[in-house]
C-alpha cells in the first residue's frame, strides 16, 4: 500500500497528492511517470511525476478529475492509501546546457514542466517559461515556475490573467523578434503541443513534447501506447514519453486517445450508481 501524505486542491478539479514512495523518489528524474491503481477493481493509470523529495522519500502527483478513476482518486484524502504505485517509468528528460530553453506548460501540463524547467535552470540554461490555462482559476504553479525561470509569460484564453490568448502567442512573438532559442519543451493538451510544434517547425527550432497516450502496463509489454514518430512505431512508455515534436503523428495520437470514450462514460455511470468507494465526486 502507498500512503497519501498530503492532499491539496490546486484549482477546481485539479488535485495534488504527496505520496509516500521512497524507492520512486530515490530514482525519479524530470520527465518520468508512475502508474497507479487505486484498489482491486481499479484500472492502471499513468501520471507524470510532478516533483520528488529524495530526503523525505515522497513524490508529488497532480491530476485533473476527468473520468471515473481520477474522480475516485480525487475523493481520497491524506492518510488513505493506493493499492499499487510503480515507477519511475519512461526515459528522463535529456537535460544539459543547451543555451536558451523555452519551457511551455498548458493546463495541468504545467506541473510536469516544473521539474524540467528547474533541471534546465540548474544545468545553466537561460530558461524562459510560458504557462497557460483557460482562465486564472485553473492556472497552477505560477510561483514555482517564476522561481526557476529567468522570464515567465502567462497566457489565459479569456485574459483573466497575463495576456489574453494561447501559450503559442509569446513564443511566436519571441521568434518574430529574432530571439535565439535552442530548445523548446512543451507539455499540455495534445492540441497545444501540436500547435507549439507547428510554430517552431518552419524555424527548425528543436522541440520536444511529452505524450500521454493510453497505457496499461507502462513497461513495454503491450504496445497500447504506441505512437508513430518519424513513421516508425514507438512505445511511449519505454521509448518516451518525450519525442521530437516535429516527427509525431499527432492526428493518430488524438484518434487513439479517444478509443474508449464511450466505455469511460459507462464506467463513470457505474461508479455514480454504485457510489463505489464512497465516491464524493458528484456532490458538487
Amino acid at each position: 500500500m502507498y500512503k497519501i501524505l498530503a492532499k491539496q486542491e490546486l484549482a477546481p478539479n485539479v488535485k495534488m497528492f504527496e505520496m509516500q514512495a521512497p524507492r520512486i523518489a530515490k530514482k525519479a528524474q524530470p520527465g518520468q511517470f508512475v502508474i497507479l491503481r487505486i484498489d482491486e477493481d481499479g484500472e492502471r493509470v499513468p501520471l507524470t511525476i510532478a516533483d520528488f523529495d529524495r530526503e523525505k522519500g515522497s513524490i508529488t502527483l497532480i491530476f485533473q478529475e476527468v473520468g471515473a478513476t481520477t474522480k475516485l482518486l480525487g475523493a481520497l484524502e491524506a492518510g488513505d492509501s493506493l493499492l499499487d504505485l510503480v515507477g519511475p517509468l519512461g526515459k528522463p528528460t535529456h537535460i544539459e546546457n543547451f543555451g536558451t530553453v523555452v519551457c511551455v506548460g498548458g493546463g495541468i501540463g504545467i506541473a510536469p514542466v516544473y521539474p524540467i524547467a528547474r533541471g534546465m535552470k540548474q544545468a545553466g540554461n537561460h530558461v524562459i517559461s510560458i504557462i497557460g490555462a483557460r482562465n486564472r482559476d485553473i492556472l497552477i504553479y505560477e510561483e514555482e515556475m517564476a522561481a526557476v525561470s529567468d522570464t515567465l509569460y502567462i497566457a489565459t484564453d479569456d485574459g483573466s490573467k497575463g495576456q489574453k490568448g494561447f501559450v503559442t502567442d509569446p513564443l511566436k512573438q519571441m521568434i518574430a523578434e529574432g530571439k535565439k532559442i535552442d530548445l523548446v519543451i512543451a507539455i499540455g493538451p495534445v492540441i497545444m503541443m501540436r500547435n507549439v510544434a507547428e510554430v517552431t517547425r518552419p524555424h527548425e527550432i528543436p522541440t520536444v513534447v511529452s505524450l500521454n497516450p493510453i497505457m496499461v502496463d507502462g513497461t513495454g509489454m503491450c504496445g497500447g501506447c504506441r505512437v508513430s514518430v518519424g513513421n516508425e512505431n514507438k512505445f511511449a512508455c519505454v521509448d518516451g514519453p518525450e519525442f521530437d515534436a516535429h516527427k509525431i503523428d499527432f492526428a493518430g495520437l488524438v484518434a487513439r486517445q479517444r478509443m474508449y470514450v464511450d466505455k469511460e462514460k459507462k464506467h463513470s455511470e457505474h461508479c455514480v450508481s454504485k457510489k463505489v468507494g464512497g465516491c464524493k465526486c458528484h456532490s458538487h
Partner: protein
Amino acid sequence: MSLSLKKNVMPEQDAKMRARNFNEVALGYDDELARAEAERCLSCKAAPCRKGCPVDVDIPTFIKHIKEGDVEAAIASIKEVNRLPAVCGRVCPQEDQCEKFCVLAKRGEAVGIGRLERYAADYARTKGERIQAIEPAPDAPRVAIIGSGPASLTAAGELAKKGCRVTVFEALHLPGGVLMYGIPEFRLPKDIVQAEIDNLRKMGVEIEVNAVIGKTFTVDELMEEEGFDAVFIGTGAGLPHFMGIPGENLNGVYSANEFLTRCNLMKAYRFPESGTPIHVGKKVAVVGGGNVAMDAARTALRLGAEEVHIVYRRSETELPARLEEIHHAKEEGIIFTLLTAPVEVQGSEGWVTGLKCIRMELGEPDASGRRRPVEIAGSEFVLETDTVVIAIGQGPNPLVQSTTKGLETNKKGNIVADEETGATSKPSVFAGGDIVTGAATVILAMGAGKKAAEAIYNYLKEKHKL
C-alpha cells in the same frame, strides 16, 4: 488384466455454453475417474515418462499413491520437484513431454499424467494443504529473482528449499507473469495461480510487486546496494511484435499481449465493475496460429464477438498451437482462415473496418523445415472486421539487458546463458526461461529455473563456503 487403450475422458463444459463464459473449460477428474486413470499406469521400472518431464517429477510414484487412494502422498511426491502442479497439470503440452514417452502411447493413449497431476494438486488445495515454512539462517545467502513467471517461481522455490533467502521482484501488481496476464482464466483460473504462488510465500519466498528492475533498481544495485549475493533473470518474452503493415495503429487493433492483459490481469471481462475497458466488435480477426492466437480468439468470443477468425499464412498442419487448443477453438466456433496473410488494416474515422489479406500457397521448405508460404498474385480480398488482434510472436523486453553492464545478449536481444547452468557473461548473474530461449512453454521455463537454481546454489556454496 484388460487395459483400456483410451484415457478416461475428463468432463468439460459444453462448447456452446462455455464459449460465452470465462469459467474453466476442463472440469477435472473426480476421485473415481482419477483412480481409474491411475490404474492404467503400468508402473514400469524404466519409467520413460520421466525423461519427458523437464523438472523430473517421479511420475510412477505419484500415480501409485493415487491408485492407493493416498492423494496427500501423491502431492507431496510431486512437490518435491514441482511447486506449480495445478498450473502444469493444466497448461503443459504433455503430448510432447511426459505422455509422449509413456509405453501405453505405443499401442493406444498414454496415461493422463497431466490430468492426474492436476487432480492431485486440486485435491490438496481444496482440502487445505499445510505448507512447511523453511527458516533460512539469518546469514544465509540472498538471491534476487527478477520476474515472477514460471522460470522465476521455480528457481525461487528451489533456492528457498535449499535454505537461501529469496526475494522475487515483479514489475506488475500481481506475480505469475504469463500465468496471470497471458493464459486465459478459462484455461487456467487466476485464483489457482495465486494459491500456488501463496504456497511459495508460505515456504518463505518474499515477493515484491510493482518493482521494475532496470528502473526501480538496476541489477548492479541489487548486488552492490541491496545486498544480494546472486541474481536470476527470468523476465520472459514480453515484447509484442507488430506486423509493420499500414493501418496497424488504428483503433481496434491490439497486440495479443495488450488484449489478453486487459482481459486476464485487469479483468476487463467484468467491465464496468472492473475499471479496465476492452473493445471487442462483432467481427474479430486474430492474426497468427500459435497458442497465444487461440487464447486471444477464444477470449474474443467470450467477450461477445459474433464471428472470430484465425488468420494464418500457412495451412492447418503447420499451426504451431497445441492440437487440444485448436480442437477446443473449433468446437467453440472459431473460423480458421488459413493460407492467408494480412497486407493492410483498413479503417474509417480512425477505426478498423477491415483486414486486407492475400491468399498464400505453400512452396519449398524454408530454413525451419516448414513449407514457405508464397503469395498468390492478384488474390487480395478484404475480411470485414472491427477488431484485429496481432498474435505473431513476442521478443525479449530489453529493460534489464539495456541497464545491466557486462550482460551479453544475442542478435535477437535474448540473454546469452549456459544451457545447463543458466550462467551469463556477468559474474553472479544467471538467467533462464523465455528471456534466454525466446518464447517457449511454461514447463521448459520451469526446467530452466530448476537447473539455474541448482547452479546458483553450487556457486553460492563455493563463494560462501557453505
